């Protein structure tokens, strides 16, 4: 089993509902966030292109953050989800620096926090909070190892890209372009 996500940048409207849903679901302190919206303009007039996408931890297969953690607070659980045990984290920040996606932040209480793919919801058969609220249904979540899952089908049928492939982290979030 390998959880992953597909995000359709062509359908995303950048409403940031996913950001708010995550902050509410996971009780994120004000001023911090586990996911965010990027709006990127490319090209010169008249050949302009605007890409809007929702970003978060890519739950990479090759994880620089887990590798640099001195205590093992950063770890990978079943399904390839990268998590931080808050009680073991010493707040040294090594993982924050080694993440090419800047997906981690220092919680005001002194430990590092990040996206968990809402594993507490996934365990109950629900979708992550961000996916569940998307008004345009541009996010797909599921098991990438199961060829019949919705996410696998979407990834197989569309042109996809991953973020910062040059970092060699093998991300598990695919963007449809």
């Amino acid at each position, binding site marked *: 089993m390998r959880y992953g996500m597909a995000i359709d940048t062509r359908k995303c409207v950048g409403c940031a509902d996913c950001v708010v849903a995550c902050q509410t679901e996971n009780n994120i302190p004000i001023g911090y966030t586990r996911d965010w*919206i*990027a709006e990127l303009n490319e090209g010169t007039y008249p050949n302009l292109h605007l890409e809007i996408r929702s*970003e978060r931890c890519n739950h990479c297969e090759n994880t620089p953050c887990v590798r640099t953690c001195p205590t093992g607070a950063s770890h990978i659980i079943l399904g390839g989800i990268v998590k931080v045990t808050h009680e*073991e984290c*010493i707040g040294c920040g*090594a993982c924050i620096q080694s993440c090419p996606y800047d997906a981690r932040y220092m919680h005001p*209480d002194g430990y590092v926090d990040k996206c968990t793919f809402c594993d507490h919801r996934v365990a109950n058969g629900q979708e992550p909070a961000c996916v569940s609220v998307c008004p345009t249904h541009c996010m797909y979540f599921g098991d990438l190892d199961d060829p019949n899952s919705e996410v696998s089908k979407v990834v197989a049928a569309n042109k996809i890209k991953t973020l910062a492939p040059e*970092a060699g982290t093998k991300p598990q979030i695919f963007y449809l372009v």
Partner: protein
Amino acid sequence: MLETKKSLNKIVSDLTVPIKSHKGFIIWVAFLLAVMGLGFYAYSVQLREGLGATALTDYISWGLYISSFIFFVATALIGMLVSAVLGLTGIKWITPIARIAEMIAVGFAMWAGLIIVFDMGRPDRLLNVFLYARVQSPIFWDVTVVTTYIVISIILFLLPLIPDMVFLQKTMKDQPKWKQKIYKMLSFGWKGTPEQYKIIKRSIRLLSILIIPVALAIHTVTSWLFAMTPRIGWDSTIFGPYYVAGAFAAGAGALLIVMFFIRKSYNLQDYITDFHFDKIGKLLVLTLLVYLYFNINEYIVPGYKMKRGDDHHLFALFAGKNAILFWSVQIFGMILPILLLLWGKMRKPVPLLIISIAVVMGAFMKRYIITVPTLEHPQLPTANIPVDFMIYWPNWIEWSITSMAIAGAVLIVTILAKLFPVMPIWEIAHEEGISEEEMNNFEVE
């Protein structure tokens, strides 16, 4: 060199009189303690409110603390360069300054360890590094080698002190009890038999060999904290030697500053001569040249390829936001000192002091230039984030705690220099041709 022969009595009194006189000592220590008091208050605020009390932001989460940590580790390396590398190659003139270098090493290495704790989000969980230790993590390597270096440096400071303790016991009869107790304890029952001399010389030699790989490891691992990440500006294979070269330059500068003030306030002009300043000045110019070479490598290789991401970073350094700091560091902290020091007249104590201060300040800011601008240029383009996430300038808490660390390291050097002779009396006596027997029979006149 020491031209005129000195008698043992003169050497002992020259080196022990500063320990007894207190001119200006109290004021200097009071000043350092005041600086530390402010830092202590700032740290209590930070402990209460967490790292949020600092100016560190979501994106720039390593700032002044980590850059001063590199600076402290760098400065501490001079102990290894002078007492081990130069000592093992049989260079005689380092005898009067080896202990000063070792004092700097002890003081700065200890505070380097502490400053890492200041940067931790949860310092109360420091022991987790050992309880849940993961050997794969550079942080774990760092904690291990810094601790090892501190321990070896302290031993390497205490060992050559043992024969001196006998002289101190004999001359310090009028001093407070606690001082005499320390001297007695640290003499470890030294009798001065030929066998003891043989053992002590052999163990100093052994430790000097041992400290070289440890010292190289501590600064290389410090650089790996950065180089092991895929970040722009840190993702470099020469970071280890680049840091070590910079460390030697910073340390040689710090050594010159401490030498200058110790010589002046302790009246040791006959021991630390202009010859020593000239030599260490040459060492400084050599290390700076090596460092310049690594600097050229570090910027020209990515600058030539201009990979995506590198361009933003290098532009900010060369001509953008960080340009003023970057060029002042490169010019005043490296290029100008090299040019000036090639000129013999500049390698006299006073010009050297000024140049060394520029080099050390440059070294401090250089660490900042390595740490912060990289974090200002994340791998992915950012959008829709609060503006202040990308702006960092240390606030008063960080400045105060960093000042506390600097004052603390200087305080350790001050106290060590006040409690113990700043030079190994027995080794100096050896060079003057005074026999071991004569030293054993030493009596105060």
